[in-house]
């Protein structure tokens, strides 16, 4: 059912659920002035954070955000209202980011842009110290690049962008259990790559 326009203020947090999303989409599809603005204002900050966490580069994240909204505006009629609008937007953003990553050899570029320290021969035994040492963003980026695409995406959306597990699962079109398993696996792999897992590596 269509909501009255005054209930659709963007500053009214999008907690109002699917009905709110559908009303906003209906406003956009009617060509109502300011509807796209509201859509942007509601979803852009979180989407930008997600793009930034997945791409690790400010310019690329802004480009991805722009492309996401360009696509969303042109194809908003494809939103069927079965999930939250934010989930649909995350799905669009993920596809765009995936294309971006495919089209550019980002791995190589990151390797060139980020200075990676050579592995040290004498490793400190304290895992806390190891994490501190590896907090250098280049190391993190390097470790993230080694992850499988779906594991990295799930982990970064959940930990980096702060999305709930259910949101990540819906955006990635996967079950919650699978997503949880991916995040868990990614965490273990990252700790291992960063040499910070106290349960491995014969540290005891």
């Amino acid at each position: 059912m269509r909501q009255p326009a005054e209930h659709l203020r963007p500053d009214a947090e999008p907690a109002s659920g699917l009905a709110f999303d559908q009303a906003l989409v209906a406003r956009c599809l009617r060509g109502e002035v300011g509807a796209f603005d509201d859509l942007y204002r509601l979803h852009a900050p979180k989407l930008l954070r997600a793009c930034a966490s997945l791409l690790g580069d400010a310019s690329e994240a802004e480009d991805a955000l722009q492309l996401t909204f360009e696509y969303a505006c042109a194809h908003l009629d494809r939103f069927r209202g079965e999930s939250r609008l934010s989930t649909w937007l995350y799905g669009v953003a993920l596809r765009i980011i995936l294309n971006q990553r495919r089209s550019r050899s980002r791995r190589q570029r990151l390797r060139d842009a980020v200075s990676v320290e050579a592995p040290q021969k004498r490793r400190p035994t304290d895992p806390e110290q190891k994490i501190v040492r590896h907090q250098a963003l280049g190391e993190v980026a390097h470790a993230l690049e080694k992850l499988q695409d779906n594991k990295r995406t799930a982990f970064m959306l959940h930990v980096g962008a702060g999305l709930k597990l259910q949101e990540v699962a819906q955006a990635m079109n996967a079950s919650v259990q699978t997503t949880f398993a991916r995040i868990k696996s990614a965490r273990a792999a990252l700790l291992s790559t960063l040499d910070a897992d106290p349960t491995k590596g014969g540290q005891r």
Partner: protein
Amino acid sequence: MNTLCERTQAWLEAVQSEQELPADVDTLQAHLQSCERCQAWQQASQRLDLAVERYTEQALREGAVARVRARLEPEFRRQSERLATPQRLSWFDWRWLSGLGVAAAAAAAALMLYLPMLREGREPVAGWVLLREGQVAVRQGAGTSAAHQEERMLSSGDTIETSDHSDMVLALASDRVALAGNTRVQLQKLTRREVVLQLKSGTVVIDADPKAHQRRLRIEAEFGEVVVQGTLLSVSHAQGGSVSVTHGQVEVRLHDGSRPMRVGAGERLRREGSRFIVEPALTPLVMPWTPAPDVTAPVEALGWLVVTSEPVAAQFEINGQPVGLTPLYVRWPAGHVSYRAVLEGQSDSGELEVIAGQGTHLTLQLSQPSAAEPDTHVTARSALSSRLGKLRTDAAAPDCRTLAERNMRLNQTAQASRWVEAAECYLAERQERQALKLYQRLTKELPRTESAANAWFEIGRLSESLGNASEARAAFSHYLRARPEGTLAGDALFRLCRLNVSEKRFGEARRCLSQYRRDYPGASRLSEVALIEAKIAKEVDEDCRAALPLLEQYLASRPSQGSEEAAFMRVDCLHTLASPALRERGAEFLTHYPHSKYVDKVRAWIAP
């Protein structure tokens, strides 16, 4: 690692992800407190999360959301407009079936007929670089930059760019496009049906073939798009965008969403503040670095000559009149002409026919003669004969006096256009004094040209703004004598009236104002004329009875934002005449202008 440790870590991850917790939480919690390895794992995991958050933070720049929002603004507007247009039909109705069948058959038949035409329309046509001067570059679709040569073929997607002090002329089918210095265009489409040119920066002058009825030339600029057919015009990004038309008429579709504007011959569209206005164009257009002596002749009567020579830089003359150095491109009235090219003692001459609406290429050989080679003239002429087949050697010489007069006039017109162009350039740079000097020189040295009359108006306007009222008055008088019916005559007369008042020439001012009322009865400035007349009546004649209706006329044309001075004059007159309307008008004045310097006076007058 034992099983208890694994379960403890799984529990910790479930807590982080807000997942269902295991039943034996208490056992695991107790284990965590006692197991150093699990505690270390917990800390490492937390630090990893922190590092990932920092990794995300470093990819977020301040103001990014607003920046992207600004980039999306046109897209949002475009989509809103698209969606706001009613375009949806209700879903299928069986009753439509018969109608749909008929429509489908008709559409198929139309398509069969139309397809060949469509294919023909999409067929690419020739485009090439006709001439160039200075450093220019042609970037092909793929983006490779290449130094450029004449007669290089162009195709859709090419970007052509001129730098400082360089010009070039492109031939796109039978249309000619001249690029001024620092101009960048991209050929979007080059087909038999349509030529689309995207003007990215700078200025282009376009000489569209009037005979190409089937082809449309479209120029897309930042401020809008210009649709051209059979016209001579220029499109420029300078000063927020402008379009000047010398022949024909163009339609300009502005990007601000307003209705398409038509710009006719002798008019110019330019930006003033946030909107575009159409006004008379003072300068007839010329193709850059082309003498173009008689662009004011009907376009149907003009043909063009493309002259190249080997070696280049030969002085080229038509009918004894120097028109420039080769290679060159020149428009010329149709008819029989004699030409001559001279370079370092070598020359070639002949006669040919300029054909209206068509181009004629002339290639001359001016190399040093040698014993083994035949005479240069013979070589050039035979080359011309084979190439053009239009060379005529037996034509009678034109009447010298007619020729001399015509050529002198042509030369002066071209020269005057150049000076006006330079003066306008100074004006664009806000160097009014330099522009004024050029206009003054134009009126002195080339007084009989079309541009000279317009130059008088410009002198008047500039002198007025520079505070030289007497010179401005003289200049406007000159303009009105030279062009009493000119497009700027109304403006000139009004300015002259205003100057007469400011110089306290009230007799002349009265005559001038009454002439303005007589000659321009529907003019928008009549209210301002009324105000000037009211001032004269009140301050010179001290006749408030005469001034009042004039002030009413002026104020009626500006209901809410009327002039404060006029409103005060009305109250003053009512006070002088001791009119009963004084109180009402005075109160009105106080309401509209509560901060006026006349407030105290008016209050005193209307006090009981």
